[in-house]
């Protein structure tokens, strides 16, 4: 034993914390009739014990616990599981309407949202008592449900929550139950992250918890609920999965009232719209209770119902107003008693983003014969809650060029002496004391209809759902063609003029001009952009240039990027630097060649561009004259690039897509801008410009290596997932694929400098380009099948087999795992399944040296120990054995000879 590592093992509370990740069944959903779920047939609890991973299984509930979140996620992806396939039950369709009555179906989801935003839930289970911390609704209901799940006393459950209950349930309740089960199983505190997988999946699976079918006469005088199917309240999934759910947990009178009011008031609104009648007038016609009529009238007066909403927000912003009324009889059932509520809401809908804001809310309440008439409630907290929970408005999305490590990775602090959880008054869906929320959902749905003409028959009204509904109802819009045309002509003239002025040289900015923060931000931009990879020659000084680039037009050399005034960029002003980065024009007015990917760098934000400039200027200056480019005529005429830029370069800065998530936009910004991933992964046309359309990211040959396709055309045998992309980009290797090699290795080394969430964002963006799922339980099965198919040696490849046995098998044959054995099976390596053998041959000739990526892979170079003939035999053997479904490669000998020549030159 190493005495040092022993001394370094402290035993604090923080170190007791473990991280849990749950694995949901491949199929599970709650429809209006029943909970459908795959059955867990087998789980190997010991499979990952060696890595310190604990597997917790209880009924169909499965989770893993590890010492880090990343380790737990990896373990969850690899855990061998077998599930049964549940019977496909045909969802019954109601009988077709035969009479003239109006019929409508409404749905209420089991989860209003999977979570406000990524967050953590921590559970600690000590001596039969449970302590929970996180964005959990601390209600008696959840307490009872957890008590049933853990078979413990509700009084021994302490919830340190901060989200209030009321409108509907959220995924944080599921996460709380998951964390509680895992913590009990391992006897330590466990943190569970509110990630979209599984909690967004949960929300989807529970989206059809209750269905109500209403029918009524055309004038709305008589209507009734024809069909009421499903569950009013949906307890945490862990209860369903473990089979510990009891009938009494499914009842919730408050939720039932909220849901019923939503359906009734939406239906009345539909009747009013069909009749062309004013919704308030129609309700006043129906409400027989004088106190209710008085309340509704008074609220309508306060809200100036008679003055219609003005729609002057332009085409992108529409406004609308809605009304809803409810009457909850008191327990005594007296006609005059009970709580009446009347709400009127004004909404503003952004038709581009789908975001909805409550611009005004007037809410009144009359507590009945023995309570006061309160025509005006304090609407501010109600409005906040509705916007947050029902409309799913994010607090404010971070800009795509935000480099700050997001706060959501921070764990909530344990509050050891937590105060007893706030008790909500039973019997009311309380938000603040005594406010009945029953009309809340209907009033927004009705206002949305008024604004957009779209009827939402199930909450929530999140931006994504509103946008989807609006897209279906596409409206033709007017465009101002003449103005765009004039702009285009000016742009054309500006770009066509081939001679650009030089920008006057300036003295290098003083070292203290930029703050340390700016320089650090610039360093991250430089790492994301891999500046040093191209601007450093093999074995040379960082950023000193001189690296050759073979192009079809001749050889180009990268230039000195250090702030040397004579040979570097020391006398470049920011204006000159920015022009070079965005337009491809050097300080002296010369056009730069697009081997320098200004076509991508144009998308870098202004702030990042400034920071990058600050960082580069703060580096040590080294003099090194630029190597002479060796381009053939006519490509050596730089001003030709003016025409090229006109045809192929769009200098527009990055514009976030408001219809996508903040994570997607962040990933897109890094990928398309500084990361310039397309520069390698998109094939180029005859003129050396990246192709568009289907060819975008479809893979290309760069510098003797193949950059594989980042689209659905990926040839990876096991298939990519967002999770495996993240692991590959973050660690340089993925179990289901292989290691980063060739020019991708320095890219991974650069990404290692970035905050984890940035790499995750890039993985998310790439996954959407590939149509790859977040994670895929079948991936490991598929991978195992591919590996199994490669066990047998192919016939007729004895020469190659001999080379493989001697030179490769010691590490690449997976019979006995040694420390040096290649951990990823060759059968899963995309390169062996590619149409070209280039990457395989490159790896054999030069080895795999992922410098800066610890443990990613170390393979010696065989350029000096294997002959061309041996390599050809070996490559054909590898193809036949590890990609048995693919056709043999052609002209391998020529490729080997060509690539060896390049190696000899280096």
């Amino acid at each position: 034993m190493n005495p040092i590592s022993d001394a370094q093992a402290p035993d604090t509370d923080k170190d007791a914390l473990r991280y849990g990740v749950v694995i949901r069944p491949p199929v599970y959903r709650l429809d209006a009739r029943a909970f459908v779920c795959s059955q867990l047939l087998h789980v190997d609890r010991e499979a990952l014990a060696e890595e310190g991973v604990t597997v917790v299984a209880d009924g169909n509930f499965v989770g893993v616990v590890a010492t880090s979140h990343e380790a737990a996620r990896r373990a969850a992806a690899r855990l061998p599981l077998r599930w049964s396939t549940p019977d496909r039950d045909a969802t019954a369709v109601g009988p077709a309407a035969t009479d003239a009555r109006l019929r409508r179906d409404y749905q209420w989801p089991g989860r209003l949202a999977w979570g406000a935003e990524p967050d953590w839930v921590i559970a600690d289970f000590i001596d039969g008592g449970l302590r929970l911390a996180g964005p959990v609704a601390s209600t008696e209901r959840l307490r009872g449900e957890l008590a049933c799940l853990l078979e413990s006393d509700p009084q021994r459950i302490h919830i340190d929550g901060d989200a209030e209950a009321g409108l509907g349930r959220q995924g944080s309740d599921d996460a709380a139950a998951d964390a509680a089960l895992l913590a009990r199983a391992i006897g330590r505190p466990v943190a569970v992250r509110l990630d979209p997988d599984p909690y967004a999946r949960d929300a989807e699976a529970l989206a059809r918890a209750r269905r109500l079918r209403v029918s009524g006469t055309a004038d709305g005088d008589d209507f009734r609920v024809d069909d009421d199917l499903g569950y009013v309240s949906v307890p945490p999934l862990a209860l369903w999965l473990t089979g510990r759910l009891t009938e009494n947990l499914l009842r919730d009178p408050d939720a039932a009232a909220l849901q019923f009011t939503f359906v009734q008031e939406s239906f009345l609104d539909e009747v009013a719209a069909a009749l062309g009648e004013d919704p308030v007038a129609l309700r006043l016609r129906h409400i027989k209770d004088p106190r209710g009529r008085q309340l509704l009238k008074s609220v309508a007066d306060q809200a100036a119902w008679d003055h219609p909403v003005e729609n002057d927000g332009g085409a992108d912003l529409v406004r609308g107003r809605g009304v809803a009324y409810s009457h909850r009889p008191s327990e005594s059932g007296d006609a005059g008693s009970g709580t009446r509520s009347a709400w009127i809401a004004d909404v503003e809908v952004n038709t581009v983003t789908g975001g909805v804001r409550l611009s005004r809310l007037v809410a009144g309440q009359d507590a009945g014969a023995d309570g006061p008439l309160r025509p005006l409630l304090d609407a501010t907290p109600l409005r906040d809650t509705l916007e947050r929970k029902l409309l799913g408005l994010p607090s404010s999305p971070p800009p795509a060029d935000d480099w700050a490590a997001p706060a959501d990775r921070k764990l909530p602090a344990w509050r050891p002496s937590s105060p007893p959880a706030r008790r909500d008054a039973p019997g009311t869906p309380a938000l603040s004391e005594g406010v009945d929320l029953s009309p809340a959902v209907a009033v927004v749905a009705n206002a949305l209809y008024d604004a957009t003409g779209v009827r939402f028959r199930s909450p929530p009204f999140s931006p994504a759902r509103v946008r989807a509904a609006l897209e279906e109802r596409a409206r033709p819009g007017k465009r101002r063609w003449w103005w765009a045309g004039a702009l285009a002509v000016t742009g054309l003239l500006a770009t066509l003029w081939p001679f650009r002025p030089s920008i006057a040289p300036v003295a290098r900015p003083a070292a203290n001009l930029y703050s340390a923060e700016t320089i650090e931000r610039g360093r991250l931009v430089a790492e994301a952009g891999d500046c040093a990879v191209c601007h450093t020659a093999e074995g040379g000084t960082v950023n000193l240039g001189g690296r050759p680039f073979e192009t079809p037009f001749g050889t180009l050399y990268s230039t000195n990027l250090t702030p040397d005034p004579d040979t570097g960029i020391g006398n470049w002003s920011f204006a000159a630097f920015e022009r070079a980065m965005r337009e491809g024009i050097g300080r002296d007015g010369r056009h730069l060649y697009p081997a320098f990917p200004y076509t991508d760098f144009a998308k870098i934000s202004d702030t990042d561009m400034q920071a990058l400039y600050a960082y580069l200027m703060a580096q040590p200056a080294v003099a090194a004259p630029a190597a002479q480019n060796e381009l053939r005529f006519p490509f050596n005429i730089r001003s030709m690039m003016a025409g090229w830029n006109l045809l192929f370069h769009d200098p527009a800065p990055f514009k976030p897509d408001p219809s996508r998530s903040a994570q997607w936009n962040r990933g897109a910004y890094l990928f398309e801008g500084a990361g310039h991933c397309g520069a390698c992964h998109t094939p180029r046309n005859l003129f050396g410009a990246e192709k568009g359309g289907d060819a975008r990211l479809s893979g290309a040959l760069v510098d003797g290596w193949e950059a594989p396709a980042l689209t659905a055309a990926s040839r990876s045998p096991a298939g990519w997932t967002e999770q495996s992309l993240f692991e590959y980009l973050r660690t340089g290797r993925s179990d289901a694929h292989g290691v980063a090699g060739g020019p991708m290795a320095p890219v991974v080394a650069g990404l290692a400098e970035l905050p984890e969430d940035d790499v995750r964002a890039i993985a998310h963006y790439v996954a959407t380009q590939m149509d790859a799922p977040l994670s895929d339980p079948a991936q490991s099965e598929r991978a195992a099948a591919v590996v199994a198919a490669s066990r047998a040696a192919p016939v007729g490849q004895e020469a190659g087999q001999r080379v493989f046995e001697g030179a490769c098998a010691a590490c690449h044959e997976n019979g006995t795992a040694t420390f040096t054995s290649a951990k990823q099976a060759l059968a899963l390596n995309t390169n062996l399944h590619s149409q070209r053998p280039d990457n395989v041959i490159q790896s054999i000739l030069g080895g795999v040296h992922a410098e800066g990526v610890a443990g990613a892979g170390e393979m010696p170079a065989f350029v000096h120990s294997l002959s061309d003939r041996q390599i050809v035999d070996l490559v054909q053997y590898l193809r036949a054995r590890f990609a048995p479904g693919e056709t043999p490669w052609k002209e391998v000998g020529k490729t080997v000879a060509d690539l060896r020549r390049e190696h000899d030159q280096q």
Partner: protein
Amino acid sequence: MSDALHLTVNGERHAVRAAPSTPLLYVLRNDLCLNGPKFGCGLGECGACMVLVDGRAARSCVLPVSTLADHEITTLEGLGDGERLDPVQDAFIEEQGAQCGYCLNGMIMTVRGLLNADPAPTREAVVAALDHTLCRCGTHQEILAAACRAAGLAPSAHEGEPSATQGEPSAPKGEKE
């Protein structure tokens, strides 16, 4: 030249100045004077350079020294406790499992790595573990007998069947060279 790297070899910590990509074998032999591991092919093919990293067999000629900072390295010198030999070494002496002896470091370290992972391996597992550790003298029978003795299996190499598995890959390779 970069900062000193800290390596834990045979329970002792050493500060080493070397380029990060230097193979571990060079540092062990040249800087730490541990000549148990041998230089054979330098390409991870023959196994003469075998050491244990965290108890698992590893070919030190292809391991960059920078990747081993947090790992425990054991060489042939560190196998016994100073007084007594490791049982694997005893078994090799008992069965006289050597000719020229150049490959013996690899054979012994490989068997030790196997026994660390699986204290009671089958004969097939022993054969598979030694499959890519090469001997050019043709001492396979003695080596296999020694390995089996160390594994607590009957060292039946001299009489009867060499192995239960079929034919060719049953003995450690080397004759193919």
